[in-house]
């Protein structure tokens, strides 16, 4: 699973990135968390409100600084969906 934390370097985006890192460490799964600061990528995903999160090239949330727990839930749901899909 690829998680992109999107935002051009404002304090909120950094906070969200930290929370995403912490959530990742709690899950024993193959998750890659990257911080994306380039604008064209954000536009491609249709994001307009910072900060945003995209999972596997799809925007799942924007404009909200999710807490570690919320992110954990989002990641879990996504992993479950991905497994059920297969």
């Amino acid at each position, binding site marked *: 699973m690829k998680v992109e934390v999107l935002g051009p370097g404002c304090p909120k985006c950094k906070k969200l990135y930290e929370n995403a890192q912490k959530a990742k460490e709690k899950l024993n799964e193959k998750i890659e968390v990257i911080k994306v600061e380039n604008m064209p990528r954000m536009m491609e995903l249709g*994001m307009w409100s910072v900060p945003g999160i995209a999972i596997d090239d799809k925007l799942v949330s924007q*404009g909200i600084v999710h807490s570690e727990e919320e992110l954990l839930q989002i990641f879990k749901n996504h992993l479950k969906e991905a497994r059920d899909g297969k």
Partner: protein
Amino acid sequence: MKEYQKLLILIFIFLFAYFMPIEKANFKESLISSFYMLKIYAREHILFCLIPAFFIAGAISYFVNKGAIMKYLGPEAPLILSYTIASVSGSILAVCSCTVLPLFGGIWKKGAGIGPATAFLYSGPAINILAIVLTARVLGLELGIARALGAVSFAFIIGLIMSFIFGKDESEVERTGFAPSFSDPPKRKPIKDLIFFLSLIFILIFATWGKPKEEIGFFNFVYNIHWYLTGFFLILLIYSIFAWFSKDERQGWVYETFSFVNLIFPLLLGGVLVSGFLFGVPGEGSGIVPASIIQKLVGGSSIFSNLFASVFGAFMYFATLTEIPILQGLLGLGMGKGPALTLLLAGPALSLPSMIVITSFMGRKKAFTYFALVIIMSTFVGFLYGNLF
């Protein structure tokens, strides 16, 4: 921070200490002016003006439902409405420049197109609520109003021109509308939100109510009771946040306010110190830059002085709000009020770093047209303002 960066900073500090002209009288006076200016800001502008304004900005950022506003900037919204909303919503949607570009990209590619998007790109940094409030407070109500009106009408016109020039080669862009903002349904009646916001705004207005020149009439009457009015709205505010808002919301609002303070306050203090050092304190002490240079470059309101202010403002980077102490210093040294407005219109909207970013994703042709429009129109409006008022 890398090791060599630390070393570079140390070398820089050493060189500064080595060559610092501390024995020169005008250097000493400039240093004193610098701290004098800081004291004036701390005493006169921060407690009753800036702090309420920070709470308002925090409330706007935390409570206003951005998704509801973006509805009017989508692909199906009527164009006139899109332009109007884009021109004024800078004050609501974005208080920090880092949020402007994603919104701009979204409106351009997924929403109402290049026109409203450019209108927003301009209005975002130019008319944020903190800047307008502090301009009116420090530089006078007239310049504050001129700045707000100028910025809104600028945004509208620049958007229209951009759409007129580039709108036709845009038809193939796929306008899919915005991704949802995932905001929750309203938690209380709108009237309660309104009372909350109005009490915040009235606290700001009445706490900063100035003493009128003549001791009669409405303004004087309000001045005599302005602390009671402030107190009344403060009680109303406290009642409304505890009675109608949840604990999470209260915390979120305060957190948002603090993050603005953290971001903007240190920069503003830096700007005040630099301005005091360079330009002195109006009527109290001089700075390192002699008045004659300022008067030659931006005194009066000729086409040249306005053009100079416009180009200088466009390239120079002003962190949020720092344009205000800088202008205060410049006005004290004899800058004309035309060029002052020009600088307010061209300065915060553009800077060399922002130009580079904008060019990289708008393309050279569109970006340079936008920069030229801002520079030319600021010059022209400043020229008119300086000569007519």
